[in-house]
């Protein structure tokens, strides 16, 4: 199964600073999320499910501390990137649905505005960001080209020549942007026209208050503002006829208004409420159809056209249909500019890759030396930090600046290493202190016990030792180093398969995309149309009417649908659902789950689904991770976890909930979850576990492999452990389920 990993969480540790002490909410969890799958995280409250999801979104509470680990998405470590970078991901790439739909909606804002708010803001930010990204990439390219030729390329090309080339590229792109901008303006006008007319007709149909004349004026304005020749060519006559038709209609409506005015002696302001005449409806429908037709026409590729116009300022390509014009401009662009540009670019790419490979080779040597250095043990803080710095530099140097897809491991390397080294020296200092404290406390307790043998019970508690083995810490440092090394080695091994042409095209595509991002402007009206489409997609009836309502006018299920629509408005890759159905009742819950499942299929979303209800999960999840006290205690595919659970906590969860055929007494889990300020030394579940072994109280169990996709952290899976059978209530249930499943399968 070589599925694409969308998000991977490695060794995440999150704590909270509180008055009572440090609460360790998440203690070292790791999981991967594949593209298009649902990963369910199950556990009771306080097990750290929501903390994990909030860490992914970068919205942890202010008193939280990330103690270690990383969350990798698209080459970035989400725990480390600055807030500005996070802005681009949050909501856009990773969206979240919260438990209570009412508290995640603003009660005094209309639904429509809440859905479109993020779209509009993001659009504005994207346009600014596009320009900078474009400029950065282009200047990097030009720098690399210069270097490549200066350091003895095959061809003698002067710096001036390169600069001329880059300038041409920049200039014709500006030309393209200008053209596209003007095209987009007209197109926007057309799209808005559709919305305006749709709104007017809808409202009049619903017998709502409408101001027909004002709307007609607005329509006229929009018609007139559609001037871009690339957009309107071929439709000039039709548009002109529409304008005159509109004038006629306006006269009719005005006559109606004045008739009404005189008849009912209404003031002009009150004349708004009236019906739209059938002539107007017909005229407007026609305009709408024309607009739709125009939008549906193939679009000009302004990147190509831009160059053509840049070279031949007096030609007019708008007379030629889009597909032909695109073809022609493409030919011209390739012959005149691109072919030679790509040759230069390719040299630069090749040069950059080679250089990066070279420095990678060097870096590998250095890393190997560093591994030996750390493994040897005796080193001082200054030495280690100096080494860390120099390693970071050489690793950073070996990053290919022209790579469009960023290399995550290399980017986060420096920080991760420095943190681990710091930790090492912290423990060097802290361990003896901790030992001393522990010894002192134990002695005190012993003394009290000896004294109080005849008297009261001693309730003296010892805070457990927080000692980290230094060897273990070194192993972690080495693992950080070797991870980068392995990555680099893999890059070196794959070097011969590197396709420079592909990379060239990637770079040009990237530049093109950023350029058109600059000119793509989303207006409120277009956003509205899109929001209404979204609302229909998530199953809200009469979306156009409900667009203007407030959250309190919706029922619980509908509110949750709105929240889902908001989450989907930016078209995210990953959707985090934090108990989305807990506040809803059974039938509504089933609807929302069906909706999420459908959206996942249609949009190929990756979903992290957090819940405490195993029943809900069975329907949704491809894989399940069971969490307890900040750790993942078992994870596997849904079938494995439900039909072959291994961890006693999973057993307990399954057996504590009755299903429809349960008659026997429920196996309740005794006690409550441990206090995470002083997490137990051994297995956190041992206290409540009737299958606990002695070792459970002393050592935390590692993850044992049950099958390649199924792991559980319990000593019961150790080869030396006594054989323990699953509780009867679960085996019974599984047998029952299998029978049923068989029946359903037939």
């Amino acid at each position: 199964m070589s599925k694409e990993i969308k998000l991977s969480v490695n060794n995440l540790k999150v704590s909270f600073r509180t008055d009572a002490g440090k609460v360790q909410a998440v203690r070292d969890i790791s999981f991967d999320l594949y593209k298009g799958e649902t990963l369910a995280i199950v556990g009771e409250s306080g097990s750290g499910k929501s903390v994990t999801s909030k860490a992914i979104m970068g919205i942890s509470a202010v008193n939280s501390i990330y103690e270690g680990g990383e969350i990798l998405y698209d080459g970035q470590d989400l725990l480390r990137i600055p807030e500005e970078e996070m802005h681009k991901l949050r909501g856009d790439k990773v969206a979240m649905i919260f438990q209570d739909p009412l508290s995640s909606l603003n009660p005094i804002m209309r639904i429509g505005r809440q859905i479109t708010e993020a779209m509009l803001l993001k659009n504005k930010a994207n346009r600014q960001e596009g320009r900078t990204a474009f400029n950065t990439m282009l200047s990097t390219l030009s720098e690399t080209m210069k270097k490549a030729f200066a350091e003895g390329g095959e061809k003698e090309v002067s710096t001036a020549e390169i600069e001329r080339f880059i300038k041409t590229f920049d200039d014709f792109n500006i030309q393209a942007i200008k053209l596209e901008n003007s095209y987009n303006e007209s197109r926007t006008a057309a799209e808005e026209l559709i919305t305006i007319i749709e709104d007017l007709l809808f409202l009049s149909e619903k017998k709502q208050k409408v101001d027909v004349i004002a709307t007609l004026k607005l329509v006229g304005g929009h018609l007139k503002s559609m001037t871009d020749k690339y957009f309107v060519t071929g439709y000039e006559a039709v548009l002109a006829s529409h304008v005159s038709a509109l004038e006629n209609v306006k006269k009719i409506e005005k006559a109606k208004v004045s008739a009404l005015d005189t008849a009912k002696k209404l003031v002009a302001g009150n004349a708004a409420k009236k019906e739209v005449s059938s002539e107007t409806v017909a005229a407007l429908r026609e305009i709408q159809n024309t607009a739709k037709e125009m939008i549906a026409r193939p679009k000009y590729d302004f990147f190509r056209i831009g160059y053509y116009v840049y070279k031949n300022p007096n030609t007019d390509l708008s007379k030629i249909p889009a597909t032909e014009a695109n073809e022609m401009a493409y030919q011209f662009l390739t012959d005149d500019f691109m072919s030679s540009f790509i040759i230069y670019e390719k040299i630069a790419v090749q040069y950059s890759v080679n250089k990066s490979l070279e420095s990678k080779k060097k870096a590998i040597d250095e890393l190997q030396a560093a591994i030996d250095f750390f493994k040897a043990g005796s080193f001082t803080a200054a030495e280690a930090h100096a080494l860390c710095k120099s390693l970071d530099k050489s690793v950073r140097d070996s990053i290919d600046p022209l790579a469009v897809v960023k290399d995550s491991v290399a980017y986060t390397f420096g920080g991760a290493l420095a943190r681990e080294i710091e930790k090492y020296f912290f423990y060097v200092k802290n361990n003896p202190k901790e030992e001393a404290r522990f010894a002192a406390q134990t002695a005190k307790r012993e003394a009290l016990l000896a004294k109080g043998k005849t008297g009261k019970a001693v309730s003296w508690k010892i805070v457990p030792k927080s000692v980290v083995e230094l060897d273990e810490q070194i192993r972690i440092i080495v693992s950080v180093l070797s991870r980068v090394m392995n990555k680099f080695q893999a890059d070196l091994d794959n070097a011969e398969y590197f396709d420079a042409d592909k990379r060239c095209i990637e770079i040009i595509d990237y530049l093109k995309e950023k350029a058109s991002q600059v000119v793509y402007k989303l207006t409120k009206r277009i956003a509205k149309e899109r929001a209404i489409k979204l609302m229909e997609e998530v199953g809200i009836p009469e979306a156009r009417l409900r667009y203007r309502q407030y959250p309190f006018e919706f029922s619980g299920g509908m509110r949750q649908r709105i929240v889902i629509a908001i989450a989907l408005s930016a078209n995210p890759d990953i959707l985090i659902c934090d108990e989305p159905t807990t506040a809803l009742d059974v039938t509504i819950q089933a609807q929302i789950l069906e909706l999420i499942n459908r959206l996942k299929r249609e949009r190929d979303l990756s979903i992290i689904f957090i819940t405490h209800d195993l029943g809900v999960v069975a329907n949704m999840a491809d894989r399940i991770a069971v969490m307890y006290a900040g750790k993942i205690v078992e994870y596997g595919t849904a079938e494995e976890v439900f039909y072959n659970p291994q961890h006693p906590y999973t057993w307990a969860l399954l057996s504590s909930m009755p299903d429809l055929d349960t008659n026997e007494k429920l196996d309740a889990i005794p006690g409550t979850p441990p206090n995470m300020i002083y997490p137990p030394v051994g297995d956190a579940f041992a206290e409540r576990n009737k299958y606990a072994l002695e070792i459970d109280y002393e050592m935390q169990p590692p993850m044992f492999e049950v099958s390649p996709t199924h792991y559980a952290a319990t000593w019961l899976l150790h080869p030396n452990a006594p054989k323990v059978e699953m509780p009867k209530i679960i085996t019974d249930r599984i047998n029952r389920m299998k029978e049923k499943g068989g029946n359903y399968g037939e």
Partner: protein
Amino acid sequence: MENNNDVLLKVDHLCQYFRMGRKDLKAVDDVSFEIKKGEAFGLVGESGCGKTTTGRSIIKLYNITSGNVYFKGQRIGAGTRSYKDAIKNARNELKAFAKECKEEGTDEAKAKLQKKTEEVQAFIAEQKKEMASAIRDQKHCDKELVTKIQMIFQDPIASLDPRMTVRDIIAEGLVINGMTDKELINRKVYDILETVGLVREHADRYPHEFSGGQRQRIGIARAVVMQPEMIIADEPISALDVSIQAQVINLLNDLRDSMGLTILFIAHDLSVVKYFSDRIGVMYFGKLVELADSDELFKHPLHPYTKSLLSAIPLPDPVYEKQRTRITYNPLAEHDYSVDQPSFREITPGHFVYCNDAEEAKYREMVK
């Protein structure tokens, strides 16, 4: 039915309306059921269907609009709306009749009118008498008797006073009912704490020092200390964690066995209700649409709403879940009540469904 001594609580045509501007909101509309002694009766339905209101009306937290509630054969709650409506109808009828008679204008008609007026007046007097007795019962019912019904609330955080110690919370009911002996109160509190699985030391603590499951135990202790015969448990587990839910269910089950409690269990989680209850009533928009033994209900659901509710239960079984098809319920499409009004009818012994004649025939066919 046959043996009236067995019936502990009888709810008879209970209506609970709330004023909403000019209109009434019919939270509970004509609901009737009986709970036998020692039985656990489950009430399910989606949120807003009136489950909780029914529970609260029974324990007299609201003044019921119409209908009667009998506990151990005595009327403890009664509403007047039905009598008022009857009087109004009678008067209107009389008015219409008088108009008719006047138009006719003969002596015979006059005599008829006279007779009718007397009849109606007698009827109204009777209704007024009933109404007076209902008001009296509602106001001055046997207080002693009513303390035998206790309630457990949904949210253990909201339902415990944060400024009272656990001892005060549990003893409050005893004090209100005139118990003054401190020793006795303490002994009762300690006993009850141990019964619900807490320890004596907990008595002097405040609610915030407890976990969710323990708080719900305090809520249960407060209810049980009054030695009730019946407990109304209003979603006692939906605010709790999965691992704690089973503890509370087991506790309620144990109490039921040891104290011989009768429980009205209100919840929206069908698997839990099925596990806990002997009989189940399904509510939909203020109406009781189906009532049957829990096994019978799950085996032969008759009303389409029950079917849709059952089809929405998620189970911890991936293979089953992926094949599960949900039935949707649309009351407008399912029923045609334009001609024939529905009522609550017994299809098979002990299995009641809210339906009209045509549907009754259909359901009978389905059961066969």
